[in-house]
């Protein structure tokens, strides 16, 4: 099949699916359902596009949609700080890094194989679907919070997270006892520092230092 035709079919199908999702969301839970459907569609559609696209650059941009969608979902889940962090770090940081990598390596437009794609999708999809169905069959969620119905929680999560990060032990708040996360915070800081230093170190090695033996000989 010709590439443009495939492309058209793919995006057509994707758009159709998106519309369906929105419709279902609306029917199920009104406008909040639409919001959810929108973000979910952004997330998943972005991922699908990312896998589908031949060009790495386009894939990377598709991934941006995914990250944004996830951020949206975070918002719906009343985790606004996380949503911000998501956009800042993922969209702003990681994606930029990815694009750098893309630019530093040569493009290979013939690397995508539809057969592999189909096989992978089939098997993973089958497995996921199977497990998903099994889980929905058997799992019992212990849901304590109320379903989201437009009532945004009173206190923003950014503040709670900030306080939590700096507390060394359990402390009392209006919502009850919260735990202190300062150790995790410190740890994260150290990991990040070490990782970045290491990344810089690895990346700056001369290629000649890393020649494998058989190529050197």
């Amino acid at each position, binding site marked *: 099949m010709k590439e443009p035709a495939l492309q058209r079919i793919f995006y057509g199908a994707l758009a159709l699916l998106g519309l369906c999702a929105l419709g279902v969301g609306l029917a199920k839970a009104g406008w909040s359902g639409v919001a959810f459907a929108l973000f979910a569609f952004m997330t998943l559609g972005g991922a699908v596009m990312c896998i589908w696209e031949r060009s790495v650059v386009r894939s990377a941009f598709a991934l941006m949609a995914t990250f944004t969608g996830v951020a949206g979902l975070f918002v719906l889940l009343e985790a606004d700080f996380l949503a911000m962090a998501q956009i800042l770090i993922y969209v702003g940081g990681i994606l930029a890094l990815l694009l750098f990598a893309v630019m530093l390596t040569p493009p290979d437009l013939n690397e995508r*194989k539809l*057969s*592999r794609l189909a*096989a*992978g999708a089939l*098997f*993973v999809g089958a*497995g996921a679907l*199977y*497990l998903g169905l*099994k*889980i929905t069959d*058997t799992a019992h969620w212990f849901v304590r919070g109320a379903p989201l119905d437009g009532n945004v929680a009173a206190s923003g999560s950014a503040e709670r997270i900030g306080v939590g990060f700096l507390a060394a032990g359990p402390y009392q708040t209006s919502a009850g006892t919260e735990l202190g996360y300062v150790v995790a915070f410190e740890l994260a800081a150290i990991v990040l520092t070490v990782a970045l230093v290491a990344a810089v170190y690895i990346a700056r090695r001369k290629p000649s230092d890393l020649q494998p033996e058989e190529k050197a000989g």
Partner: protein
Amino acid sequence: MMSLAFDPATDFKLLLAVPAIPLVGYVLQIFLRKRLPHGDKLLTLGMFVVMCLTVYLGAKGLHAAYAGERFFHHSSEAGLEFGWLYSTGTVPAAQNLVMGVLYDPLGAAMLAVVGIVSFCVHLFSIGYVHGDKRYSIFFANISLFTFAMLGLVLADNLLVLFIFWELMGAMSYLLIGHFSHDPGQPFFHRWATWACKKAFLTTRVGDVLLFVGIFILWDKFHTLRFTELWAAAKETVAANGGEFPTWLTWAGLCVFGGTVGKSAQFPLHIWLPDAMAGPTPVSAMIHAATMVAAGVFLLGRMYPLLSPTVLSVVTVVGATTALFAATIGTTCYDLKAVLAYSTISQLGFMVAAVGLGGVVAGMFHMTTHAFFKACLFLSAGSVIHGCHHVQDMRLMGGLRKKMPITFACMLICTLAIAGVPYFAGFFSKDEVIKAGFLKILDRRTFDGWSLYALLALSLAAALTAFYMFRLIFLTFYGEYRGNQKQHRFSAMLAAEGVEGPDPNEHAAHDDHGAAHGAHDDHGHAHAQDHGHAHGDEHGHAAHGHAAHGHAAHGHAAHGHAAHGHAKHAPAPKVAHVVHAEKHDEHGGHAEHHAHEPHESPLVMTVALMILGLLGIFGGHFWLTEPQNVFNAHPWFEKLVTPTTLYGEEIASWCAPEPVGEAAVEHFEHLEHAAHLDALIVSSIVAGTGILLAILFYLVWPGIPGRIVAFLGQAYTAVRRKYYIDELVDATVLKLTWKLTYFQKWIDENVIDGLVKTVGALNKFLGVFAALFDKIVIDGAVNAVALASQVFGAAFRLVQTGRIQQYAAFAVGGAVLTAAWLILA
């Protein structure tokens, strides 16, 4: 003067010394052979002691028998018992295997026979094997064999008997293979190489059957001691309403299977002719006098356990073997082959005798046969020795004057085997025939099998007389043919090509075991040519018959052989008649092939003479009552009767004595009639056979050729031993090889496949792996590896070093785990 009463305290020690002497001799010979320059003579001396001991102890048995006492001793009388599997006394006897020595009339007789024969063979070997490269090993092995045979005779227990039985098999293997280590004798070298294996494996088939019989008996009776087995069998049968239970019949058949293997009965007889690849003393000792008789001995030991069905089978097999081997015997030209088939035939007599109910007759024939057949073989060895290792009777003739002692001994024993009155074989063969008559004359015991057996045995007896005298006439009468007409006989032999089994052909069967169509053509060429060659045996020139196959080859040999340089003759088969190395000791070279045959040295002829004497008097010492010889009661029948063998109870159960006056009278009448009939029949058949031989080979020498021509293909079939070797090759061996290669194939492919299934679990674990690898070029290689290598390959498949594949496995595994967790 020592007392002839049996004293358990001392005599059992002597009995233990009997097998111990050759055993010690063996050990000394093996470990000290370089430091014992006269080990052979020492051993022979030891065997002399053994002979004296056995004869002395046997005389005690005779003494008791003539005094009318029952002579039946077990070493437990002297407190000599030996727990074998566990040490003595630690566990109950029913869980252990307690060995002892059983010294009963049959054992006494057999022990003496073995002692005498083995001494003679040792003595003979000093002369015969002299100069052989592996002289001391030969003596060591033959001593160990003697040990095994003596042990077998003394065994009180079926498993111990089996142990010695197998040990004899192994020694037989080593001794048949004697020449397989000696390239100096090309023909025997090649023949022995596979003949020893054939002998061992063929007998092992029988051994395994015997082993199975032992399983059954042990399972049911939890004892293997003969005396207890007899009693147990009697009880079992009594408890079963007088009928033998089926399992006992099976056990009997299995035990008989052992006999079939060891005593070379049809259809497992095929190993015995090939066992002639061993040195002649070995043939005399193992393959004529003792080891092959062990099968008959076993039947004697197990007789009360044999059900009527088994006895019918025994009868038929024995009679068939006797007749069938005798027919083959009439067509052989190899001196030893004739004797080998004669042995098979005589063993058939013994087996049939047991089957006909004449267990004493069978044992008696075994005893006398041991004497005269050993003598015949040793005489043949003497002839072969004198003729410089020529075995073909067509290359002999006229040896009467050159080897008078050998001739005399051989003639005596031929008369004995032919069943001529006054000679040992007459008495025993007469008994065998009588057993047959006894069975068919009585209406209650008559059956068709017995009639068949009787006819077959009579015919076989006639044939025996015929082929034995044929042997005598071909070898000792007429002109010496090994000399002046060397070239012609070389050519003839080459044309013949089938004297003795053809080593090439058999080796080929053996080595490849698979299809061998080409060889069959080969065989046919031989067989057809043979008929022509046969007609020439009395000095007619070989006319243009030699048209095909090897015959043409033979003519090629002709030109060379005419110069007397047999060594240079291109036909390899000629070489076997010439034993190049042997000539050196006679001061000549290989080219001096044509020099005169000579009498053997004294060590050899003394052995012949001892056995020759026994060939006359071994059956019955008739000098005491020469006039009454036809109504004689030979020593053996005094010594061994069912009663003395198995005891009153068992004997009367096995062969019920007539009760009541009329019955007794009837029985006596019957016995008398049978005796008379047997006498007449055996005299007639022996006479006929001898007469025919005289007519064919002395008076009208042209007749055999004509008969052969008349018989045509039928003769060929007999000449080729009824194609049984070929049949075995084409069925049993082929099947075995098919099975072998099939299973090997399974091992290399299917079990790999099984591990592939294990790998398939792996595969299932990583369904993607297989899929991706199809796309990756490496996949093909990996698939091959998967198929050919086993577990490793399946795992190696995983070890691609590719992260994506690892990821795939991880995912697959996770899915599976999750699925399992949810399902469980």
